[in-house]
């Protein structure tokens, strides 16, 4: 079995780091302590969204029409994934509507953006000023199946698998790829 969550891995010059158990919602202090290379396992409620829902969330943010969804963004994790009976797994975070959402949603309170693929230096800078981080997770859909406790649609049901979902997860793993203005890219 793989280490789940990853227990030890090298950071910088062979400095060993314990992985972190992170419960949502995430405080600014916990997010502020995360640095590139930190491994973690997520517990609690997370949001799942990709191209369609993220672009709609940003439009609502721009027009001040988020309503109750605003509370869901505070201290949130947004996993860039579809949600369906085929499971969950990271989609490319550098697609225009997804990467374009990272800055505005960080400013609205999202603390961890979880996905895959290199993001730009400009996005890393916007996250840094808002106190959020970008993390990656393996495309391990079968492995993630038993980490999902429950799921429900929060908004945009007409988008199908691209709706805004809320999942309750136990031990969903990730590794910080960009934080505090630094990144692995």
């Amino acid at each position, binding site marked *: 079995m793989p280490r789940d969550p990853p227990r030890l891995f090298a950071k910088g010059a062979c400095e060993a780091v314990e992985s972190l158990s992170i419960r949502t919602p995430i405080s600014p202090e916990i997010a502020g302590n995360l640095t590139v290379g930190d*491994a973690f396992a997520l517990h609690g409620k997370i949001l799942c969204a990709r191209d369609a829902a993220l672009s709609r969330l940003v439009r609502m943010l721009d027009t001040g029409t988020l309503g109750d969804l605003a509370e869901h963004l505070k201290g949130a994790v947004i996993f860039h994934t579809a949600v369906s009976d085929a499971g969950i797994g990271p989609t490319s975070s550098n697609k225009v509507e997804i990467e374009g959402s990272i800055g505005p949603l960080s400013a609205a309170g999202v603390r961890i953006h979880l996905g895959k693929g290199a993001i730009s230096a400009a996005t890393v800078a916007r996250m840094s000023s808002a106190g959020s981080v970008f993390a990656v997770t393996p495309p391990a859909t*079968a*492995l993630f199946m038993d980490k999902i406790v429950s799921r429900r649609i929060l908004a945009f049901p007409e988008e199908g*698998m691209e709706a805004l979902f809320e999942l309750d997860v136990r031990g969903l793993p990730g590794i910080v790829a960009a934080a505090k203005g630094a990144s692995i890219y």
Partner: protein
Amino acid sequence: MTTRCERVEGLVKELLITASTTFRPDQYRAYERAIARETNPPSRWAMEAMVENARIAAAKRYPLCDDTGIPHLIVEVGAEVAISGELLEAIRAGVAAGQRALPTRPMGLMGNDEQRIAQSGGVSSDPAWVVPPAMLVKPIPGDELRITVLMLGGGPELRSTTVKVFHERNAEGVIREAGRWAAEVAAKLGCTPTLPCIGIGRTHYEATTMMLEAMQEGDLDCQSEWERIVTEMVNASGSGSLGLRGTVTALGCFIRVGPQRASGQRMVCMRPGCSVDVRRATVTMRARELA
């Protein structure tokens, strides 16, 4: 009594599920070699998770990746095999049955041309709405009918390219150009280790079909010199698994070269496969089994 078409439909249904849930032995062995070679622990951890994911997927018949992909079909027909439109329809019905049984991800868009492009006509909840493109049908010698199902996910499609390359009478130069593309997109792809698949032909269509044949036939245990060159070029990027940095960014490479024409250019298709590529399964039937 089961008819010929019912048998084919059932076999194709199982093919699709196998392709979506199963690593081949050469994939497992390639990961074993990569994990042993990887020097960066986070990248090694990511690959270990990918192997464990594959074991669970096979045991529980879960998709390897939630992006179950677009099914592509290659049908090879022996000279002694008679096929009909009814049989081709049975193959398509088998794909739909497999999609509903697994199930694959329901991501087919509804509506007219404009609505499907703008994603404004809604998403079908039926996994079988994700219909395969036209089948690639090829004649082969003998009395066999071979059907291959390939599942092509969206991440690699974002980073694929089909474009002319001026060969300047230097074959390795063409291969290295495709290797440069694969190395450049590895970090953006995210789902690494990657598996670049390359086809070279006379037209865009032929280059793409050669790339599909490379996906169909490639073997990670048996890499050509050109395939090793591309793999080394991608690994030299240092992007590593999931972009976490490391020695292994590519598990290998599949290349297929088709007929060429007298001209200064070659059409080259490069698809940077992701960490679950190639998702494929093939069944072979004899003419007498189809009677």
